[in-house]
């Protein structure tokens, strides 16, 4: 029960961290692509 509730609470910050890493990597890729194509990021 204790483990289950620990998982239930902590899975959300873990997911948040995963999305944060994904977005940061994607933005770096966007930036690289924009430079290669000589256009602005936004």
């Amino acid at each position: 029960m204790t483990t289950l509730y620990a998982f239930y609470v902590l899975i959300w910050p873990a997911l948040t961290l995963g999305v944060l890493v994904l977005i940061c990597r994607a933005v770096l890729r966007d930036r690289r692509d924009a430079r290669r194509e000589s256009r602005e990021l936004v």
Partner: protein
Amino acid sequence: MNSLSLHQFSTSTVLLLMFAFYGGTYLLTLGIRKKKEDADAYMVSNHRIGFGIGAASMTATWIWAASFYAAATSGYTYGVSGPIHYGLWGALMILFIYPFGRRFRKLAPNAHTLGELIHARHGSSSQLILALSNVLGSVISLMVNFTAAGALVSVLSPLSFQAGVIIAGVGVLLYTLWSGFRASVMTDFAQLVALMAIAVVIIPAVFFAMGGPSELVAGLDNLTAEQADFFSMDAILNQGAPFFVAVLAYAIGNQTISQRLFAVNEEHIKPTFITATIGYGAIVIGLGMIGLMALTLGIQPLDGDMNNLIPQMVSGYLPPVFIALFFVLVIGSLSSTADSDLSALSAIMMADVYGKNIARGKADPKRMLLVGRLTMIIATAVGIVFASFSLDILVMLVFVGALWGAIVFPVIASCFWNRVTNAAFTTSVLIAMITFCVARFEWLPMSGLTALAFEGLASIGGGIIIALMVFGFLGRAAGLIAGVLAMLALLVFATDFLRDYTVLLASLTAYGTSTLVCVVMSLMSSQRFDFDTIGQRVGDYDQAAIPADEDASHGDLAGATR
């Protein structure tokens, strides 16, 4: 421990935090600023925003200050399942609009607002109804976010509520005014990184500081049977169901979403929406867990105000630096939504009002920019005044909710069904608003045949919500079957029951009435619309303004746009 007090910052600390936040954000926008911004980029950038920036912007925009407070309140009120019933449905609002969004983008790849698409499909009256609902929604959102800033500043420092409202309003306007949407999406990324990083730290920090999982499990004895039940009917009916009804309406009625839909690179729409769904859900449900923690510990919200729950928990269990981080978290979330609302409002006034209805084919991009910037200044002033005087916006909220519900079917049907007419769109929305008011304000006694008729309309409304959701992902046949089954189930279970739940009855009635009227009027029409013409009628303003001899390659589009 059942009463935690709030940490108090000095005036100078809060001012320093706010000036550092808004100053840093402003400096960030200097990197993308152009001396001569163009009107299209001011509204939707270059229609080629990448997956990373797009997903970050979508997530940051959808998370507003109320997301944290309401999720924590839901956790505190409904127990174990409470945060899920707030965050999950809010997240699904992003996901469920995605299949329809792809259709919008396919029909009008160069649009700036959903209203432009509807203008090309139907004309001014339908477009202006949609634009009005978008404007009201964004003004309310601005006011709520500025109010949240004022409330946060006043509870954590000696500064007044009005001071917090004004600093937030001016700060957001300052960094959004010049570059518009481009500034909004650029700063959204930075704001999202900050608020995600803070959420990742704060949630486990509070959890372990309060005693960790063993303390949480021990505290479950403090919960009622309903609160301890993950499948609590109380939580489903009072928190989950009303949100579920609003899933499509919020996304359709919100220009901030469609603006990003038209701005993101078309190939990246799917991953952008899915990532934003997961990101929003994870952050908001996670912070909602702090409400559940407070409930298990038996914490009483200070002054009975549920909005104090998260600040109380952070103040009570963590050192002051975490309170400062929480402060930045809230300011970041409300600012990212407020700058998106300003960008949305400016795009509506630039494209829907000036471009399509005032300039009527002779829009001057420079004048459009002026309209956009003036809109931002006026909207900020209105938001600050409404928030500062704590004006009662309940009637406006009710009205906007009804309008959003009423337009869902006509907007979606107009993009898939070639028989929907302008008259069917406009009439269905107006009649739906009237029936909504009859049910919501009980202009007629809800008993006997009247109540039965409204429960019938509401059942159609419930059926159409399910039908549209299933249709979006699984196609027409599956949507039809699911909708009919849902409607029949509602007819059986809602009869003689739904009349006691006025708000739900009225909302579903708006959906049902607009669907019924729109379908009947469309079937009576012999008109058939050619969807290919939408793409030709909606184009970029700056390219269209280039004389044909200067840029012959854009001549066709320019002619079509005007």
